[in-house]
């Protein structure tokens, strides 16, 4: 098996899983497809990179690329562990901030004024543009460029892949820190979401608020607080996705980050993950995101080998788009719906009710 393909695909699939989860959470609570969601990750990535760079500057750290022998193999840790920890924390914080600004400054006020799904969707577009503009200006700022150069990152093509923690085992297998981080993250995410939703009171309140908000309100549940928490979780996952993108740009379908990409390329794949998993299912979105990630990279790979035509690899996103079309037309509840064994025509029923 091609180990490299597997690890880079896993990282990409994890990013998609995180993004799809965020999109689904917002769709379930605020009932809108948040076009700006992938851009939140980008904001988080830029913030993380900047603060990591400032940390390096403050502590006078230099990247140390000489491998040390450990029980795992030859381990390369270019910067201190605190350095990476800062990146993770900062990305989560900024993801949350960007998400909450979107909710409280734009979406919630519009909802109060009775905006319909179309207006809300377009509002998320507008917020996306604002974020793009901000990042555009930010990444050409003279001081920012200087600081980022400190950690060897070009502000216009942010990628810290060369400073990722890496291990080369005795058997010659190359494992990147991002890969391990992705795997652990997704596992932890799944477990903690399960515990949260099914084993805590808050989880019960969240599920009730999504199922029937007015009734939940009547039962003394503060539905608005549930929505706020959903946005926070959405921001957290967006931030983590941003950190992963920063560290692993170049893995799978992740191109080096700039203000306008890969958020642009990844948007449709993230939405595909959300829809295929089932747009009203949290675990569906994680599964959907992972699935799309693997499908996008493995299927063209197999096709290319089978037909001998390497060009086919470039059409990977077309597969996701076809998957979205087929899902929406024939199984609108996605994987979650299929697993429940019911192919609801809920799609039509829902839209007609909202008339």
């Amino acid at each position, binding site marked *: 098996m091609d180990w490299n393909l597997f690890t880079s695909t896993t990282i990409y699939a994890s990013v998609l899983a995180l993004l799809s989860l965020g999109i689904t959470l917002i769709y379930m609570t605020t009932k809108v497809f948040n076009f700006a969601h992938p851009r939140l990750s980008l904001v988080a990535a830029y913030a993380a990179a900047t603060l990591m760079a400032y940390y390096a500057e403050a502590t006078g750290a230099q990247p140390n690329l000489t491998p040390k022998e450990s029980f795992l193999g030859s381990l390369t840790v270019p910067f201190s562990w605190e350095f990476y920890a800062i990146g993770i924390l900062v990305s989560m914080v900024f993801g949350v901030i960007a998400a909450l600004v979107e909710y409280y400054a*734009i979406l919630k006020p519009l909802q109060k004024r009775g905006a319909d799904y179309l207006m809300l969707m377009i509002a998320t577009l507008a917020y996306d543009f604002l974020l793009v503009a901000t990042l555009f200006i930010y990444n050409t700022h003279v001081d920012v460029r200087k600081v980022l150069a400190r950690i060897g990152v070009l502000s216009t093509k942010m990628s810290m892949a060369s400073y990722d923690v890496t291990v080369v085992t005795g058997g010659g297998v190359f494992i990147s820190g991002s890969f391990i981080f992705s795997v652990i993250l997704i596992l932890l995410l799944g477990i903690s979401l399960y515990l949260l939703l099914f084993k805590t009171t808050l989880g019960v309140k969240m599920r009730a608020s999504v199922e029937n908000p007015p009734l939940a309100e009547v039962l003394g549940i503060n539905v608005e607080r549930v929505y706020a928490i959903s946005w926070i979780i959405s921001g957290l996952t967006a931030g983590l996705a941003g950190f992963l993108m920063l560290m692993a740009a170049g893995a799978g379908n992740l191109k080096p980050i700039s203000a306008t990409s890969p958020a642009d390329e990844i948007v449709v794949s993230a939405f595909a993950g959300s829809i295929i998993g089932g747009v009203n299912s949290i675990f569906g979105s994680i599964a959907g995101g992972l699935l799309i990630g693997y499908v996008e990279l493995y299927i063209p790979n197999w096709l290319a080998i089978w037909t001998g035509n390497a060009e086919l690899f470039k059409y990977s996103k077309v597969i996701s788009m076809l998957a979205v*079309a087929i899902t929406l037309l024939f199984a609108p509840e996605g994987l979650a719906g299929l697993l429940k064994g019911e192919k609801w025509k809920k799609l039509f029923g829902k839209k007609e009710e909202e008339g």
Partner: protein
Amino acid sequence: MNVEVLLEEIISFIGIYYILTAGLNVKAGMTGIPDFGHAMFFAVGGIVVGNLSARIAAAAAASQLNVSAWQAVKMVISNNTELMARVNEILPHMPRVSIVIILVSVIAALVLGGLLGWLASYPALRLRGDYLAIMLLAASEGTRIFAMYYKPLMGKTPTVGLTVPNAFGFTGNAGLWSTIFILILALLVYIYAERLHHSPSGRLFRAVRDDEASAEAIGKDIAKVRRDAMIIGSALAALAGVAYSFSPWIAGSSVAAISIFDRVLWTFWPWALMILGGMSSNKGAALSSVILGALLIGPIRIYKNDIAAALHVESLGIDPGNFANALEYILVAALIIIVLFVKPKGLIPEYPSRTVSRDEVKATIDKIAREKAA
């Protein structure tokens, strides 16, 4: 800065965006189909010009290039940049061929755009609301990626694309005449769209948008209505794509998948314009296109350096050039947000259809009563 060139760019910008937005208006504003994949129909126009029309030009110029017509046609893909450079030198000397190319482009775009719209109407029959919006967006993105890499469609280099044939070269002043051409197109579209809006068909489209069940109850074929809206609106989008390809804006360079399928410029901006102008309002689409072009984008592009200097951007450490690009994004975003909050119905909100006036009704009743008495 050449004033004439600038004016041509701004006017063609307005014309292109008006036609594009009018097309979206028919689909989304009037009929309620949330088409977030509008860009792909626009791209059809670009492909028609860069692929189909270029081949016609190549075949016509073949003899002067010492190749057979068939070879020339093939070289449009295999050897685009060099071939088209030579073709574009020859084309200005062939006025009749140039005019044929222009006409063929318009007709082919309308037909192919309409055809693609017809195809796209099938999901529109089965899906609604935000699901349909995402579906059409996904279709547009998928088509974009496909076109980017499928060489027979958009050439060998995804970033360069296909060079546009210099069909207005024969006039001696391509910039001026292509702008006039775009204006004429925009005017024709305006007349058509206005008549459509006030016609029974227009009312039917809006009826289907507002209350599908009632429209169906009085025997209207909902599916046909939505299909027609998609065909018309998409054909108009393709027309805008042709206008763009010939416009002084790209000044005869190339159309590439990344530019003509760009969802920000050709889907989201028309949506912003439609909302600003007022959903379903054709006059609103025209008004907002003028506002965007003449008052916003135009001045930004002209004065970007002055604006950057006035805001002391450089002293803040920001690169003025990038600032101008960012400014366009900020502007459109601010526009959308302000409109959504302050005037969500747009500048020209939709009013109930004009029906016959009370006096006319009374006069008719009196007339009938008199005739009966007689």
